[in-house]
C-alpha cells in the first residue's frame, strides 16, 4: 500500500565522500516497503519540478533509511537537511527483488550508491538466517561507505577501481574471481551503473545464473503517468514495447530487457 506523507528526518550523515545516509520517521511507508522498492521525494522549489526517486535502503516498523549520493541540486539540498526537517515523500513504489527458495548462493553485486537497495535486501536475508555474498565496488577508498554499515555481514567483498580499498578491480571482476567456488544454483541481485548491469547480464547468460537488476532512469512522475522511464523489452517481435522502470520495475530479470537502448 503506497502512501503520500510527511516524513521527519531523524539522522542525515555522510557515510562516504558525497554519500549520505538518512533515516526518516515514516511508518506509513516503512511498514510495507520491500527491498528493491523506491520512494519519491518532493521538493517545494519550482525551478526543478521532478520529484526525486531513491531506493529504500532499510525499513523498520517506524523508520525508513535512504542512502544517497550528492550529484546535483536536489541531493545537494538534501545533504543540508537537519533532524526535524519534514519531507514530502511517496512510497513504497515499484516492484521488488524476488527471493527464490532452493537457491544456494544469494549474491549481491553493487556499484557505488547502488549499495542502497542491496543493504535492505541483505538485511532481510540476515533476518531469515541466510548469509548473502555481498560484492560492493567503488571508485576509490573515499567512496567506500563506513565499514560499520556492513558489520553484520559474514561475507562482504569490497573492491575499488584503483585498488585503494579491497580487491583491485570492479565488483563484477571480484564476483567473477569467486564465482567458481560458489555453490549453485546462484541468484545475483544487482544495482549499479548501466555498464555494470550490462556486464552482469552477459555473465548471467554465459554462466546460466538468475540475475535481478534494479534499474535507474530519469523519472518525471515515478507513478506510471508519464511513460518517461523506459527500458526496452527483450523480445523477438520487432514492435516489442518498453517496460516502465517506475511501475514494471525498478527490478528486472536480466533476460527481460535490452541494454543498448
Amino acid at each position, binding site marked *: 500500500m503506497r502512501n*503520500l506523507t510527511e516524513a521527519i528526518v531523524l539522522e542525515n550523515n555522510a557515510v562516504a565522500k558525497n554519500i549520505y545516509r538518512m533515516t526518516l520517521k515514516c511508518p506509513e511507508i516503512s511498514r510495507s516497503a520491500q527491498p528493491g522498492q523506491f520512494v519519491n521525494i518532493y521538493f517545494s522549489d519550482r525551478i526543478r*519540478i521532478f520529484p526525486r526517486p531513491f531506493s529504500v535502503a532499510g525499513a523498520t516498523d517506524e523508520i525508513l533509511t535512504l542512502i544517497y549520493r550528492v550529484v546535483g541540486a536536489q541531493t545537494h539540498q538534501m545533504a543540508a537537511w537537519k533532524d526535524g526537517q519534514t519531507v514530502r515523500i511517496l512510497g513504497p513504489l515499484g516492484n521488488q527483488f524476488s527471493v527464490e527458495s532452493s537457491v544456494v548462493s544469494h549474491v549481491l553485486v553493487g556499484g557505488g550508491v547502488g549499495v542502497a537497495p542491496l543493504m535492505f535486501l541483505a538485511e532481510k536475508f540476515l533476518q531469515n538466517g541466510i548469509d548473502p555474498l555481498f560484492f560492493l565496488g567503488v571508485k576509490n577508498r573515499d567512496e567506500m561507505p563506513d565499514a560499520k554499515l556492513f558489520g553484520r555481514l559474514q561475507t562482504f567483498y569490497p573492491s575499488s577501481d584503483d585498488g585503494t580499498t579491497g580487491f583491485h578491480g570492479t565488483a563484477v571482476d571480484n564476483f567473477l574471481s569467486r564465482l567458481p567456488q560458489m555453490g549453485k544454483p546462484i541468484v545475483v541481485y544487482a544495482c549499479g551503473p548501466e555498464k555494470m548491469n550490462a556486464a552482469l547480464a552477459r555473465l548471467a547468460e554465459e554462466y546460466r545464473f538468475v540475475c535481478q537488476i534494479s534499474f535507474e532512469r530519469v523519472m518525471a512522475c515515478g507513478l506510471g503517468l*508519464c511513460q518517461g522511464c523506459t527500458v526496452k523489452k527483450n523480445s523477438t517481435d520487432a514492435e516489442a514495447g518498453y517496460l516502465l522502470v517506475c511501475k514494471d520495475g525498478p527490478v528486472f530479470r536480466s533476460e527481460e530487457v535490452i541494454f543498448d537502448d
Partner: protein
Amino acid sequence: MIDLSTQIGPKLHLKNPILTASGTFGYGDELADLIDLSRFGGIVTKSLTLHPRAGNPSPRVTETTAGMINSIGLANIGVDAFIEQKSESLRSFPGKVIANIAGRTEDEYAETLKKLESQEWIAGYEMNVSCPNVREGGIEFGAKPEILDRIVERFRGLTDRFLMIKLSPNVTDIRILAEVCQKRGADAVSMINTVYGAAIDIKTRKPLINTVIGGLSGPAIKPIAVANIIKTRRAVDIPIVGVGGITCGADVVEFLLAGASAVELGTVNFFNLNAAAEILEFLEEYGVAQGIGSIAELVGKAKV
C-alpha cells in the same frame, strides 16, 4: 458556496472545470489508491491509437527550468485494449471521460473514433492533431488549415458526441486553425499542446531527448497558453479548454478570465498529486472573496 459547474458548449457539462491533460494521468485509473478521482470534473485519457504503440526510445523526458521536455511518441495500449481493460473502472468514474485520439493517418483517427462510439460511457473526444513527437500523424494535421478543415469535417460526420480539437502553439496564427474547427462543427478547441523544445547535455553533447526536439510543458509555458487563449477567444465563439503550465488555483482563475471554460492539469500531476484538491479549495475562497456565485461568471471576463 460557489457553483463550480461549467458548460462546454451544448454537449458537455462538467461538475467542475478541472480536467486531466492527456498523457499526464495515464488512463485515469493509475492513482485511484492515492487520490480521490472524483475531485476531477473529467478525465482526458492518454492519446489512443488504432493499434498499440511502443513509443519512442529513451530518454523520453528531461527537466528544464520550471518545466520539462517530453518525447513519449504516443506510447499507448491501443484502442481495443483500452476498451477491454479500462472501461470497467472508467465507467464508474463520477465525472466525464474524454477519449483523446491520435493517429498516423486520417483513417486511423476515424477507425479509432468509430470503435470508441460503441462505449456509451465516453462523453466525448479530444482529437490530438498537435503532437510534436511523432513522425507521422502529429502536428502536420493541426498546422495546415486545409488539412485540418478536411479531418474535422470527417470527425464531425462520425459522432454526435462532444468533439474537441486540441491545437498546437507551434503555428504562426492559432486563430485560423480555431476558426476552421468552428466552421466544421467542432464543439470546442483545447490549447495548448506542448511547445517545441530541446536541451543538450554539455558533457556528453547528446540531446537529452531521443527525438532531439520534444515538447516543452510545465509552469514555464503558462504565459504562452494564456496568450493563445486570449487570441483565440477573440476569434471564435466555440468554447476553449485551457491547458499549459497550470499549477494552482490562481492559474486556473487566470485561464478562466482569459477565456477558457475549463482547464486541464498536465505536468503538475507529476509533482503535486494534490493539485486538483488545492485548486478546488482556492476557487471556493476566491469565489467568496470576489463575491462570485458561479465560476461561469469568470469565463472571458479579463478586461482585455
